[in-house]
């Protein structure tokens, strides 16, 4: 029996003013796996961390559910905390009820969706097992693998090869942890240290009683970030959507989608980058292929094919970089280094940034010898100025 501690962070009232923590606490009280529920003003503050540490040692928990802001915001705080508490890294679940719930939904909707999200999170840590592996790469469960070799074909980084024992093995130096192999494995026997198919399946079970139509979104890191941005901007969207973060759209196994449909989920959205722009090289390309195939199967089952749909997000989220053709020497280095395939050479030889695909990472600017590329959000001048300023102080 898992012993989970639940921390509800108020975020200095930025969260609990937007949803009803009392109801949530009351509803969670009955959960057999929860040993304490602790409300803190700011979980990331020294005072907040101290309270959590005290509660954790008092109750002897083996897993922690941090109900707080986005893992992209303060995830490292909780990771450090669990390390300090001796809780396995896989036994931490951060439930993002700030950016993706409290800040985008009406009070009552936020409360009920928050509860669903928390239940999903609890389900994950209850299902999760401590994971002592220190190698951070895809792992293949040989007990279940039947050596079909599809992972070899689909790995965008050629990180998987056949071992002497006939089973596929992952080269940790090449593995980029994109999870495309996980998504493609017909038996779902591959996992990443922080992404396991059976745990996702357990999360889906936590969804009972959710608002109908119940929509689950598998959001790749970039789409997830965009959803967070919506939260920051306070751009409301429907509370029917429940987001599960995945490394890449290519990491979503269709077995998981089957789980969702079997669990009664009304619609599944897979959200990722625009076609050309996957940082994982071809994650969304294989995802689209799998989705198309799955949609055919849905229709065969007399279900509407849109019950599984792809959404591209992150288009033009940031101001795109600009190439000054007067300075450009046409070396093409920018095109080579761009992780999103956003730079293309035009017919007349000019290099141009496709604004929808650019994520303003600045790698092209750093690689551009003649200094022809301007990154509007952080121009060279600003960086130089920062260095001057730092030296002057």
């Amino acid at each position, binding site marked *: 029996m898992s012993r989970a501690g639940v921390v509800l962070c108020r975020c200095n009232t930025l969260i609990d003013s937007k949803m009803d923590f009392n109801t949530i606490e009351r509803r969670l009280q009955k959960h057999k796996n929860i040993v304490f529920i602790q409300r803190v003003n700011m979980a990331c503050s020294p005072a907040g961390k101290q309270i959590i540490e005290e509660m954790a040692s008092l109750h002897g928990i083996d897993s922690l559910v941090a109900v707080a802001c986005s893992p992209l915001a303060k995830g490292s705080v909780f990771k450090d905390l669990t390390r300090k508490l001796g809780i396995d890294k896989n036994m931490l679940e951060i439930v993002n009820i700030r950016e993706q719930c409290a800040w985008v939904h009406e009070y009552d909707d936020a409360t009920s969706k928050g509860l669903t999200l928390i239940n999903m999170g609890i389900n994950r840590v209850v299902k999760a097992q401590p994971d002592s592996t220190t190698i951070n790469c895809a792992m293949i469960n*040989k*007990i*279940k693998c*039947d050596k079909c070799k599809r992972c070899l074909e689909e790995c965008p980084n050629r990180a998987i090869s056949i071992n002497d024992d006939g089973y596929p093995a992952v080269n940790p130096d090449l593995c980029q942890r994109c999870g495309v192999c996980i998504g493609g494995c017909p038996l779902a026997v591959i996992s990443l240290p922080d992404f396991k198919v059976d745990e996702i399946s357990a999360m889906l079970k936590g969804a009972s009683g959710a608002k109908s139509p119940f929509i689950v979104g598998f959001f790749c890191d970039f789409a997830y970030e965009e959803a967070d941005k919506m939260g920051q901007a306070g751009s409301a969207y429907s509370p029917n959507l429940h987001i599960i973060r995945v490394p890449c759209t290519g990491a979503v196994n269709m077995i998981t989608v089957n789980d969702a449909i079997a669990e009664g989920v009304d619609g599944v959205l897979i959200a990722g980058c625009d076609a050309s722009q996957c940082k994982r090289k071809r994650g969304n390309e294989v995802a689209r292929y799998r989705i198309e195939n799955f949609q055919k199967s849905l229709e065969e089952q007399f279900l509407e094919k849109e019950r599984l749909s792809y959404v591209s997000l992150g288009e033009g989220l940031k101001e795109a970089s600009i190439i000054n053709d007067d300075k450009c020497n046409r070396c093409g280095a920018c095109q080579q280094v761009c992780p999103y395939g956003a730079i293309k050479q035009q017919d007349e030889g000019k290099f141009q940034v496709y604004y929808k695909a650019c994520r303003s990472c600045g790698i092209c600017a750093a690689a551009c010898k003649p200094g022809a590329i301007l990154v509007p959000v952080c121009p060279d001048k600003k960086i130089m100025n920062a260095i001057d300023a730092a030296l002057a102080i």
Partner: protein
Amino acid sequence: MSQKQSMPKSKGEIEVIIYETDFLIIGAGNAGCFAAIEAKRKSPDVKVTLIEKAHIDRSGCLAAGMDAINTYIKKGKTIDDFVKWSRSQAGGLLREDLVIKIAENLNQPIEEWEEWGLPIKKDSETGEYAHRGKWDIVIQGESMKPILAEKVREFGCQVLNKVVATNYLVTDGKVVGAMGFGVKDGKMYVIKAKATCVATGGAAGLYKNYTNDATNSHHQLWYCPFNNGAGYAMGIRAGAEMTTFEMRWCATRTKDFNGPIDTISVGYGTPMINHKEEKIMQKRYADLGGETAPRFLRANAPMEEWLEGRGPCYVDTRGMSDQDIKDMKTDYLNERPSYVLFLAARGQDLKEEPIEIYGNDPYIVGGHTASGYWMNSEDWSTTLPGLFACGDVAGGVPNKFVGGCAAEGILAARGALEYISKLDEPIDIDESQIEAEKDRVYAPLFRMYAEGDGVKPLEMEERMQRLMDEYAGGVHQFFRMNEEQLKYALKHIKILQNQVKYLVAEDIFELMSAHEVIDRLDVAEVLIHHLIFRKETRWPGWQTRTDYPEKNDAEYDCFVNTKKNTETGEIEVFKREYKQIVPGDRLKPN
């Protein structure tokens, strides 16, 4: 393509792969998997190897799953109760010493299976397994075989998929492994072992099934059609003593599909009726137990109705509730999903139209009847030293089903480990038998290259099936037979055995098919000897002699056993005495 390239065209081209192991298990079905797991957990140092004709994840009877465990000793029931029930169901003939030992181990594998992930329905009040009949519990066993296969791998057993065994390795009368070939790679496999356990399936496809059409439905059987009786055949050829083949498994199945029927009749208490809407069992077999009459009677009853002109017969589903129908279809989806497809393909509404039933083609299957190796209850060995048996090939214990076969796997592994621990000298193998087996196994391929003409495995199989059906009591003959018919069948089986040398195979798959029919012929021969010997009718339906319609306890209240004389090739038939351990009337369940 690549498979054809690797196909040997002459003896010199045969690639021989030699493995050495401690404990070899032939057949990675339910029983074999439990034997492997038990051996590995009792003695982790013992090297355990399984060979499997298909793939361990979905091989054998449990390929599609299972909806119930029919032998679970529930609270309040005793081993004696179980023996008495099983004995009465089998018409009073079984090996009580074996049954008692199996009964002692019946529950362990099921509880383990649950722990490993098999969902078993629980009674919401008591927390005990929810029961369906006297000894049945309901499971959701669609994935029970993959779950078991995962455990086998987890325990560190070596699994050789796609390798079919063809004969035992025998040295000084002891079984020291087995030979076979890869059904995909065409290589010859020689596995030397300190102890060997045969855990293959029974024999389907000896008889023609009535669903067979010229182009399709050859395998529309209830029993797994890929179980061809290889385990029996290897034993017969090596001179092992076999028992009770004449107790054939003929049962009432769903008409035109050969689907299981106990799911409906036992699980949901639906009565069997004839076209006059008479409840068959209650009307004609009330004195023999009515709906709970012994299995052979229940198998035979609808066929008798047909013969008397009161067919077709049904199980009456019209009184079932919507929920029951849904639950019943769920059970089918867990065991034989395509039966649900069949009902849909007939557009049948079970509340309007009952399910039609009929007899199936007879099978030799030790999990249901007592056919198989004559066993030693001390260590689950056969009459061949070094050879152990479990599951459908092990004889003497009818009604063991999935649970009993699993328990037998455990018992056979224990016996084998004990045997291995007592072995001191290393295995010394007479290599000439490997050469001889090469000749025998690959002959149909070589004949195809050399002659380009001969007998196709399917042709021979269909000839044998028609012969058995018509002359050895098949379903088209309402399971009836007489001495003359049986002798005719035997004569032609012998002709077919002589024709084996003309078999041709174009590829490795056909080579496998060729050996399946060769093995079936050997089983059929022994079966006919058994049927001829028992000059009585002990189990009408399973064994109906029109020339001896009565039971003759004075002569035949015993086991009929056979053994092939390995010198002369003759089948010797003899009796073995019945030993009663649990007191009481053997025909009464309590």
